């Protein structure tokens, strides 16, 4: 099968590419970021998804399967540029997939779609709308990209559209939102709050994307691994030190004194939980995670120990 992966230099996308390549599929990638040590048989085009040259890749490769992992979070791109990448890129992926005859598009989104708030429920299901966006406007473009991807379900009925909302990923690569948060020796917490964090091993996340490509379920699916853990436990079990500060003080301390640089709105994500129900995806694909919660944390802390 001909497979096109956007955002292929990302830590989960690389794993997906390697798996599909090993299984004999013809894998092609698009990403402005480099992936120097990739196998020779996996071409990577350093292109902007929204430019004409990216459409040429669709036209010449004629992928049957498109895996769209080319969105970015507020931690890696700012303002208008992030909007353009997430919304313009997603629009281009679906338009080109439709135009050039792809059979399936898998949009890999994030569980932060649901938002974190004091009165949002634990274990979000796919039917729930995004909430608490007012507190974290930097998340709006990712939410919009997810909702835009959903329109393909009715706009392009001949295309199998699979939308995945994957919880935080963590592992030896050290990449991803949660890994960035745990990068330094000290991890900030909002004094008096200790939300559940839902995360999975990056290998399990890659397995889930591959499984979505194999089983081709149509619709929206939460992807979760083991049970969530309180943030304080995540910090402790990865060998970091939790620094609880009152919320106004914490907002000032971000980006200083070894604290990660986070948008102010992200504080709601370390104050209230975002936990998802992954039952629908498991039922549709038979997905079973390999790594339990402590094994995921150990995999990260072994690769990035604190001394």
């Amino acid at each position, binding site marked *: 099968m001909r497979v096109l992966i956007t955002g292929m230099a990302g830590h989960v996308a690389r794993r997906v590419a390697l798996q599909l390549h090993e299984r004999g599929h013809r894998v092609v990638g698009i990403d402005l970021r480099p992936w120097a040590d990739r196998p020779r048989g996996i071409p990577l085009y350093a292109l902007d998804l929204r430019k004409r040259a990216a459409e040429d890749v669709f036209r010449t490769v004629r992928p049957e399967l498109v895996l769209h992992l080319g969105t970015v979070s507020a931690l890696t791109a700012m303002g208008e540029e992030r909007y353009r990448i997430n919304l313009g890129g997603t629009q281009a992926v679906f338009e080109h997939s439709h135009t050039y005859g792809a059979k399936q598009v898998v949009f890999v989104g994030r569980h932060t779609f649901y938002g974190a708030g*004091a*009165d949002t*429920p*634990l*274990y979000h299901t796919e039917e729930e709308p995004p909430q608490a966006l007012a507190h974290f406007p930097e998340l709006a473009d990712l939410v919009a990209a997810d909702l835009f991807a959903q329109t393909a379900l009715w706009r392009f009925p001949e295309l199998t559209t699979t939308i995945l909302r994957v919880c935080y990923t963590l592992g030896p690569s050290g990449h991803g939102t949660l890994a960035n948060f745990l990068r330094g020796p000290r991890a900030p917490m*909002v*004094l*008096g*709050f*200790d939300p*559940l964090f839902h995360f999975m091993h990056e290998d399990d996340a890659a397995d889930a994307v591959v499984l979505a490509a194999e089983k081709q379920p149509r619709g929206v699916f939460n992807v979760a691994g083991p*049970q*969530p*853990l*309180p943030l304080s*436990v995540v910090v402790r*079990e990865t060998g970091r030190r939790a620094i609880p500060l009152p919320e106004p003080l914490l907002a000032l301390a971000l980006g200083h004194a070894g604290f990660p640089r986070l948008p102010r709105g992200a504080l709601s994500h370390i104050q*209230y*939980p975002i936990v998802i129900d992954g039952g629908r995806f498991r039922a549709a694909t038979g997905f079973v995670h390999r790594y*339990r*919660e*402590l094994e995921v944390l150990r995999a990260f802390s072994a690769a990035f120990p604190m001394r």
Partner: protein
Amino acid sequence: MSAELTIAERVDRLELPFDRLGIDPFGVSKWHLKIGMGALAALYRHYFRVRAHGVSNVPARGRAMLVGNHSGGVAIDGAMVLASMFLELDPPRLAHGMAEKFINQLPFASIWTARTGQFTGLPEHAERLLRDDRMLLVFPEGARGTAKLFKERYSLVEFGTGFMRLALKTQSPIVPFGFIGGGDAIPTVTNLYKLGRLLGVPYIPVTPYGASVPLPVSLEVYYGAPMHFQGNGNEDDTVVQGYVDQVKAQISALVEQGRQNRTGLFT
């Protein structure tokens, strides 16, 4: 009350799917339970000297809804029912109360309620806990119930109907209970609603002695036989209201039974 087991042993006997760190999929933590239940047990056994009647009516396992009257200006009734399920049953059960939304916004209260299984009162939480075969603690009078004044302490205010639709939808048995003495422990003469709003709570109860600190009166709880209702939760309001009235009548009868049997405030 079987006193031979320690609090820690009781926590270990809870039939919940704790992981190796002692945390369950809802974030309930053994460590927090041991401390929280230890504090509640001291209040239950020594301060309020709670007597629980009809505990054998509570199913040993499987989904169930404990539904009763509010009694007392702060939620000591809920705390003591929680303690009775933990201390009187063997194996003990963790009752999940439905907390007021403002509690999750309060530092530290947010942690302690979440880690001891007392989640924000959202329909999604209630349904998910029941489908996970857990036990839910429900006060259909809501905040109106805790706001009852001393003279109204044995009356029942209007019941919501959401709990009954949930019971029908999830096919959960309802265990009615009557709680006696909470209104004596906190003899509310008036409630300060404006001050409460300023402090981020629904109201501040005022007692003849000023503060809303509970008096060490004895408390009692009467559990009735489980009630089963057939349906899917989409029935007409009149049908559901009829079922609610049956539960309310049963709770009223249990409260009356408790009043008749009550020998004194401190005995």
